[in-house]
């Protein structure tokens, strides 16, 4: 009897508790994710801001600027983990940061009703801030409203070493075919045309070529097609360069590449984003290229294209939480972090907000580090970011291991790209898309 009693008690307890199991997303009312404007809660304001290590100084600057009015906690979180942590918070109904920095694609995931994290900034941010971006914040425009502010634009440009070009008598390529030819001229000289074993390949080659990977046609349809000629022309052009040894299959951040190639000043040219100069080429712990050598040129154009498109590697976003107790303050924080001209002037990234950009350009212009002003090319390319890559509701960022890992490991470019695109094709339907070619 006692046995049965104990057993029944245990089962009853388990069942009772499981009946409370809600599973799925919480029922917290998300304040501003649709058209409403919610005022800040009463009482002293406090914000939790998630940043990656690079953005921590910006967060600390913000903390200082609102000292006394708002209590700010800056938490350093892994860039790759922010998405999963937000989902964790969604599951548990608590723990969201009021503001977070994030990788650009995730805005689509957050805007999705099943997630609902991102605050509709159109309701909270002044129109002149939006106008100050011109079209640079269009990435964040979903369904007619802005759900994030771009931290920076990471448009790809053609970085090159003027000294090496002079030495070898090279001219700066203006088409991709010329790029390939120039790269082949480097064969045997010991110089390199760059490393592609990282996201730079996606941003600098596949995206500008228009290879359909995340081409959102409408909220329920996405174009993904590995057989498109816009994809095959990339690997057809680049594979010979890899085979000739002028393009390195390692990541540009690989310790071996940095030590053996970059720090030896053997990188003749490299298609990289606008932050490449300040973040990679210049720092003594990184490539440490001496003064007066490097500058940036506009992107080479693909055959048959009327524009020399760019892709983006990065271009992170600031998102405010729709679940925040202080949405107004959160929005203000987002504005500061994304646009404050003084704070942004000494950062490595290219600001999308015009006034901040002016200050940034000023600083770079006065800087004698570059052989010529790289910002000209950057400004040109800022308006030429190819528009058929859009934020998508599936985790395209998390699949880069297939692309990069394949290239790193020696697989052909075609194999690696197809593997990546295959993964995207598999993920898209679960996020509510129909895949078309």
């Amino acid at each position: 009897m006692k046995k049965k009693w104990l057993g029944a008690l245990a089962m009853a307890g388990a069942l009772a508790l499981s009946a409370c199991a809600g599973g799925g997303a919480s029922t917290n009312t998300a304040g501003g994710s649709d058209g409403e404007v919610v005022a800040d809660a009463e009482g002293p304001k406090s914000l939790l801001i998630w940043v990656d290590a690079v953005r921590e100084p910006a967060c600390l600057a913000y903390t200082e600027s609102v000292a006394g009015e708002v209590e700010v906690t800056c938490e350093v979180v892994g860039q790759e983990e922010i998405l999963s942590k937000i989902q964790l918070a969604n599951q548990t109904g608590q723990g969201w940061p009021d503001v977070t920095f994030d990788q650009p694609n995730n805005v689509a995931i957050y805007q999705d009703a099943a997630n609902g994290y991102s605050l509709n900034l159109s309701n909270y941010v002044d129109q002149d801030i939006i106008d100050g971006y011109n079209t640079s914040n269009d990435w964040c425009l979903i369904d007619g409203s802005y759900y994030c502010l771009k931290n920076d634009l990471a448009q790809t440009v053609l970085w090159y070493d003027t000294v090496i070009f002079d030495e070898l008598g090279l001219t700066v390529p203006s088409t991709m075919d010329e790029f390939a030819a120039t790269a082949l001229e480097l064969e045997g000289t010991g110089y390199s045309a760059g490393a592609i074993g990282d996201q730079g390949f996606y941003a600098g080659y596949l995206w500008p070529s228009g290879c359909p990977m995340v081409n959102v046609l409408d909220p329920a349809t996405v174009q993904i097609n590995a057989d498109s000629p816009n994809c095959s022309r990339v690997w057809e052009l680049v594979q010979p360069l890899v085979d000739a040894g002028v393009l390195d299959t390692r990541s540009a951040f690989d310790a071996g590449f940095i030590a053996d190639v970059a720090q030896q000043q053997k990188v003749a040219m490299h298609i990289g984003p606008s932050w490449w100069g300040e973040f990679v080429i210049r720092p003594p712990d990184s490539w440490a290229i001496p003064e007066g050598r490097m500058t940036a040129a506009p992107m080479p154009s693909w055959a048959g294209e009327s524009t020399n498109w760019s892709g983006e590697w990065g271009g992170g976003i600031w998102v405010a939480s729709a679940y925040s107790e202080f949405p107004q303050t959160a929005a203000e924080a987002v504005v500061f972090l994304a646009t404050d001209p003084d704070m942004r002037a000494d950062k490595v990234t290219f600001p999308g907000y015009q006034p901040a950009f002016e200050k940034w350009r000023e600083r770079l212009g006065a800087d004698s580090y570059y052989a010529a002003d790289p910002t000209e090319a950057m400004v040109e390319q800022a308006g030429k970011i190819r528009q058929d890559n859009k934020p998508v509701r599936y985790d395209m960022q998390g699949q880069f291991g297939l692309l990069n890992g394949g290239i790193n490991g020696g697989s052909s470019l075609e194999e690696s790209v197809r593997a990546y695109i295959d993964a995207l094709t598999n993920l898209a339907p679960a996020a509510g898309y129909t895949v078309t070619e």
Partner: protein
Amino acid sequence: MKSASKRNSQIHGILMFLPYFVLLAMWAIYPLALALYTSFQPSRTSPSWGFGNYLFALTDFRFLPAVLNVASFLLLYLPAMLLVVAGMSLLLDSIRARWTVPLRLLYLVPATITGSVAVLVWYFMLEPTFSPIKDALAQIGWTQGTDVFNKGNLVWIFALIAFSTGAGNWIVIQYGSLQSIPDDILEAATIDGANSWQMALRIKLPLIRKYLVYMMILTFAAGLQIFVEPYLLSSIPSAPGVANSWALNQLSYELAFRGTNLGAATALSFMLLLVCVGLAMWVIYRTDFFDEADIKKKKKVRG
């Protein structure tokens, strides 16, 4: 035993057991029920109650590769463990006890380096720029980080990490089991003229067989659930993202927190759980490991 003291024993026994029982209910039974419940719930990819989530998890394009990954990992890891642990503990047992003490302490040292620290240390052990064995690596033609940390080598790397963490610990434990072999048996074998080789293989090994089996079961169950090492290795610059969704647990995590699909994630978790539970039941009912625990036989009459 008088019935009053029997009653006393019953009640107080229950009271003593109760705290553990509460924890058992909270952290094993309830999660099990919860996993089952959540796995049947409707989710984005399974609009109604039922097995939809299971189907989705099983047919996910990453599922089969993950199964193959974990399977090949186990195929490398388990036999290595068995051979090395059995061999080393027997070797230890054949030398003077006094000398085994420092050796055993040394063998235990790697057991302190687990999880995140293990990935850190082995990154530096294997990355050719930093490695103590960089010359040996260069001989095989591995001079770059990407030579070592690429998809093809992942299985070996994880097996190496798991092995280095676990082997020493188990060697010490199995050495202890060897001490439980009664002297009369060994004496008899000695008198019969067995040399140490035969002693080890024919006498000692069969006698600790069940402890070895137990070790294999635990190692298998833990290996099936591998997560930390592939997860952290994916953040290393030599091969970023190389081991995303490599292991089944990683896939579960991805489904839950990058794909917003808790239903499919718990379905996968539950399947892994079932395999472990099945294994446990097999060990309990079909092997003699827990005979000492007297659970299959009738309870001894006490008092």
